[in-house]
């Protein structure tokens, strides 16, 4: 880490005003910041990210629970993304994989990724499917 890795994004304007309800889980149609989008329009985006695997584990970033929200405003998509650890060595890979996959969706021309740490990621944030896959590989989940 450190040298050789691009600087992280600092706090974002929306972080100054938003403290997510800690009990909230990512869900279809998470609150749209910049317009009204129906859950059915977001659904393909969540499904697209189910194809993005964590570089170290045989699980998608969705099933690992790293995606906290997806918002769409026309051709622009915003993603709230967290990581399992602050010293995650794969941050840049995951960010680029998420961006690259969403840009392949019809009508998506811009992807903005917000790095969020609140609430902190824990194993409880994995989906049942994520747990099942990890257990099948002999990883405690």
């Amino acid at each position: 880490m450190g040298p050789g890795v691009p600087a992280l994004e600092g706090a974002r304007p929306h972080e100054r005003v938003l403290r997510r309800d800690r009990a909230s889980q990512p869900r279809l149609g998470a609150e749209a910041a910049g317009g009204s989008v129906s859950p059915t329009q977001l659904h393909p985006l969540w499904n697209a990210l189910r194809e993005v695997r964590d570089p170290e584990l045989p699980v998608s970033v969705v099933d690992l629970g790293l995606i906290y929200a997806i918002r769409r405003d026309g051709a622009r998509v915003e993603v709230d993304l967290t990581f399992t650890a602050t010293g995650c060595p794969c941050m840049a890979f995951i960010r680029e994989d998420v961006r690259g996959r969403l840009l392949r969706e019809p009508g998506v021309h811009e992807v903005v990724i917000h790095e969020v740490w609140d609430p902190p990621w824990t194993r409880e944030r994995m989906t049942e499917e994520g747990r099942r896959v990890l257990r099948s590989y002999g990883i405690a989940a």
Partner: protein
Amino acid sequence: MPAPAPTIELSPAARTATRDLILVLADSKRLLGMRYAEWILGAPELEASIACAAMAQDEWGHARLLYALLKDLGDDVDRLEHGREPAEYCSLEALDLPPQDWPDLVVLNALADAALTTQCEALLGSAYAPLAQRVEKLLEEERFHAAHGAAWLRRLARAGESARGTLALPLTAALPALLRWLGPDSPRAAALREAGVVNATGSALRARYLERIAPLLAELGDAAPPRAPAAPDFAGFDEARRRVSTHGPDAATVARIRGDKNRVFLMD
């Protein structure tokens, strides 16, 4: 579960103090990560070596998050990370020199890391939202560091007189400076507390810290450091950098931390 942090506009004084505090924590964590890393292949057991690798990774992760916050406060983050001389660092004085032996490292792990964590805990629910939104994750990762430091300190304390004796010197050297590092009860500290950026400063932080490490010190027997003075000597203490010494860490370590040999590989 802390209540949602209110959003506040910091006064210029509180803003400066917030910026300095973030830099103190970021620099200290970057140094501490390097000190842990120096023992990745030198610890007495493979498990301890792996623990040092994990703790180094955590500390550098925390430092990376903290440096990134300074962009909002007007800093040139690239210069902070890659362009400063040792004397410009604001890291814990206890980290200025590489640990000479394993007991030295254990004291850093058990006491210096605990001082940083005590300061971080005072940021829970901070009115400065970017800190509030990151500190829980940091503290969660620190739990293992505390357990590791405590386990090794106890192990050395119980391993007989000679092992216990190796702790006396580093403990006696480290503790007064760590207590001083938590800072004076100054107007500057009060401004930070009144703005809601931190929930404790100075003496209150020292009390929390002593409570945290009391069980460890109780086990040390004749290796226990002399009772810490109730009030540290703040003569010559630079409150912004939290240091008395005007030198910084050793030059070789700073060169590695800056990544002097890696600049050509830095990518945008």
